[in-house]
């Protein structure tokens, strides 16, 4: 019984601390990014890092995570966001991050490209990644 209570408590604590983490490859020179920098990069308003290198934005095809992340960085609903991307894509002024079907494919890509930036739930972070910004998961 004590073990069950302990397990429930741990789950509760883990849920309380659920976060979305913005990540870069572990060997990246970037140590931190501001929310505004992340917003500008993921909304294709800039494609350059502070050192002038071209950033490669990638994400996993996870609608729930994606909707939450973009709500946090842009305050846009999924519908507003799709309309935003449509405007950029079909005028050639920007495009959304490249998406991968699963986390493993994304990690493989990240290993090969030093300037990639992505986001994941913090519980899914692997040693190949470094967290540069955290967002508490909204209720």
């Amino acid at each position, binding site marked *: 019984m004590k073990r069950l209570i302990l397990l429930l408590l741990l789950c509760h604590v883990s849920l309380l601390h659920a976060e979305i983490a913005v990540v870069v490859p572990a060997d990246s020179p970037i140590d931190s990014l501001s929310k505004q920098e992340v917003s*500008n990069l993921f909304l294709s*308003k800039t494609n350059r890092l502070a050192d002038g290198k071209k950033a490669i934005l990638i994400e996993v095809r996870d609608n729930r995570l994606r909707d939450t992340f973009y709500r946090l960085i842009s305050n846009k609903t999924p*519908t507003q966001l799709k309309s935003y991307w449509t405007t950029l*894509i079909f005028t*050639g002024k920007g495009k959304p991050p490249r998406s991968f079907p699963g986390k493993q494919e994304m990690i493989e890509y990240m290993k090969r490209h030093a300037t990639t930036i992505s986001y994941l739930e913090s519980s899914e972070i692997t040693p190949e990644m470094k967290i540069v910004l955290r967002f508490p998961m909204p209720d």
Partner: protein
Amino acid sequence: MGYKSYIKIALYFLLSVLISTNLSANENRWQELLTINGFYTLDLTYADDAIPIISNGNIPRVLDAEESTFKNSVFGLQVELEIFSGLSAFLQGSVFYDEQNESDESLDWAYLRYDPGNNYDIRIGKFLVPFLQGTELKSVGYSRLWARPLVPGSGAGGFIETRGLELIKRIPLEDSFLSLQFSLGEPEHQRWTVDGQRLGLVAVKYERSDFWLRAALLRADYEVFTPLGQVIDDKARVNMFSIETEIRFYDFVVNAGLSDSDADFSPDDKLSYLSVAYPIGRFTPYILAARTSRQFEAFTPPPPPVSAPPPPGGRPPSQRVGDNDHETLAIGFRYDLGGTHAIKAQIERIDIVDESDPRRGRVDSEANVFTILLEGIF
């Protein structure tokens, strides 16, 4: 050179690049280099009386009384190929029904894009004129809230596309964003009696999370001919101005826009619109009021012979003869299906007062137009 020639050249260019770099060598590499996007609108429109409407293609369209038609449907495809880091080729075209209800195609964009860093983009090639947001996205219905485009087929005073150079500068600010777009080129006019010579445009867009404002200035120089090829004016000029905004106010979304032009040769185009929407999840009801006005002048044609130069002292005398006013009041909704498709339905009341032809006098037209459509991107 016609559209079909451009399409052929563009396709040959793309094909030769694909072959030369060995498509089958590395599939993953191609997924990184080649991006293909598309858009479609499957549109059913009914009018209870004969009326001209604004269509999805770059053409005017007149509906017959009690006509139901799919002729406003459009399909488009975009291909972007990264040739090497920082340089990419971009093609975008659409297929639609022309004025004779035959299927036609147009290559709307064909350019090379170079990213030199520092948030600059340099583009060389063929572009739609970015005078209003709707002139660049006229055929991409999914990008707008409403069922029908707001910008008439004449686009920016008849100048629909331009060939030349564009410079885009993106400026991220602390909690907002500014983008500048400069365009310089040789424009193509909708009417074959107008020969565009030079076009210059500057557009500024300021964005915050719940607000954007866009303004543009355009100037074009052009020659005007009679249908027999006689030069009427070889130094005609048009100056145009536009301002558009979107504001999220509490749970409402307000869109408004205004454009005006001052042309040496008529018509002077004016456009204004106001829309209020109230998104409820995927369902977004809206109301829209829009008005376009074209002010016409009559000119005394110069005397023959055909090859004679323009008359001394500039263009021939003109006299304002009347306007063509097109007013729309619409109510409708957009329902988003998942992430990339939407259904829209719209009922609009269109009133047209045409006094542009003094021989014909004033002609009033009015009709109720019903539109239901499915559209999306892929």
